[in-house]
């Protein structure tokens, strides 16, 4: 069994990408979208999340450790591929390369984002609320940094969902894989809308 450790780690990596990290991402952008309905709506929802009992334990088990594992193994995976989109310009080969490229963007984005929000809250420097995000996103470069970060996360999740279905042997035939491409495109558009819409609400109040 010892020689099957690699298999186990890769399957765990795949699973964690969807459960819990993917679910967390959708939940996170869904709550953020409440910003569209005004400052009070967002603050109320963010407050509930923040005041959950055992919040630090929950965050560690459901978010930090899974992302840390997924990110570290992910970076290793990124650097063991030989990218070939110039020679083999097929659609799936591009998705393969983009999945890895967005993974690297996410390492940078998530580190920055967590430092700016959760770490600062933990240090008692700021509070999680509407005005925190408003302050960050009112700077145009930061706004675009967040647009790139959010779209990368959503792409990585949606395309990851597609390959998750293959990794777990759910979609096998070319036809089912084609249909799941369209389903994942809809996931990308829907979750991407939530993300971008809330960024606009924070930054421009629209």
């Amino acid at each position, binding site marked *: 069994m010892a020689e*099957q450790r690699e*298999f*186990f780690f890769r*399957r765990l990596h795949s699973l964690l990408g969807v459960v819990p990290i993917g679910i967390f991402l959708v939940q996170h952008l869904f709550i953020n979208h409440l910003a569209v309905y005004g400052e009070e709506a967002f603050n109320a929802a963010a407050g509930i999340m923040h005041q959950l009992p055992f919040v630090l334990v929950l965050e560690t088990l459901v978010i930090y450790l899974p992302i840390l594992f997924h990110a570290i193994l992910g970076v290793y995976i990124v650097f063991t591929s030989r990218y070939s989109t110039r020679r083999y310009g097929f659609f799936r*080969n591009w998705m*393969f390369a983009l999945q890895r490229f967005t993974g690297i963007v996410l390492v940078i984005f998530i580190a920055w984002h967590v430092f700016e929000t959760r770490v600062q809250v933990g240090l008692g420097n700021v509070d999680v609320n509407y005005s925190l995000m408003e302050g960050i996103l009112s700077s145009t470069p930061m706004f675009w940094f967040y647009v790139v970060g959010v779209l990368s996360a959503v792409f990585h999740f949606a395309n990851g969902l597609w390959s998750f279905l293959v990794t777990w042997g759910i979609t096998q035939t070319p036809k089912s894989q084609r249909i799941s491409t369209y389903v994942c495109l809809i996931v990308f558009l829907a979750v991407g809308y939530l993300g971008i819409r809330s960024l606009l609400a924070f930054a421009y109040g629209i």
Partner: protein
Amino acid sequence: MAEQSKVTFIITRQDGPDAAPYEETFEIPYRQNMNVISALMEIRKNPVNSKGEQTTPVMWDMNCLEEVCGACSMVINGTARQSCAALVDQLEQPIRLEPMSTFPIVRDLIVDRERMFDALKQVKAWIPIDGTYDLGPGPRMPENKRQWAYELSKCMTCGVCLEACPNVNDSSNFIGPAAISQARLFNAHPTGEMNASERLNGLMEAGGIDGCGNSQNCVQVCPKGIPLTTSIAAMNRATNIQAFKNFFGSDTAL
């Protein structure tokens, strides 16, 4: 094209496994219906490069000359394919020939595909029927299954799918798509099925099926049109189930 009297080849050569690669250009007389191998034979007959210098003949590998053995694979104008089935009339000139870079180079266009045979050993891609007495006729196979299994059996271990795979390279130990599909072939066979879990466990060993990242280049380039990505997904499902059986225990675990 037919009027042209010369064909130009730019060939990436290498004198030995550890020698530095270099390019050499050859101009050879055009004949009708030439394939790349007949052009290489022409160079062998008269090994003089385009500068008029005497050189060593270009080395390549071949066997069947009808696209069933897989020995003659090389990268032709940027695409890995069989040189015996590559017709000069259908290729843009100058024609560039390179060895498949995924494999260790033996000399010039000859590569060592041993890793593919090691991979077949890892997944036990055969049916053990040797014994001391006649086992009698094997069980019959359903016709619809035979039809798709026949497609998988066309694999000639040519290496084109490994060459196209971004995850088969020096920094990864991934066995590549061909052996995964072969494990599926032998697991589909009614007699081979009796050792199915051994092949699945081979697929779960280091360098096994988890190395696939779903770029799906393999299925696009396979000269035999083998549904490699369907095989990979099917083996993904089968290895996951096998892993559960191994861990939680079951009489069919091993």
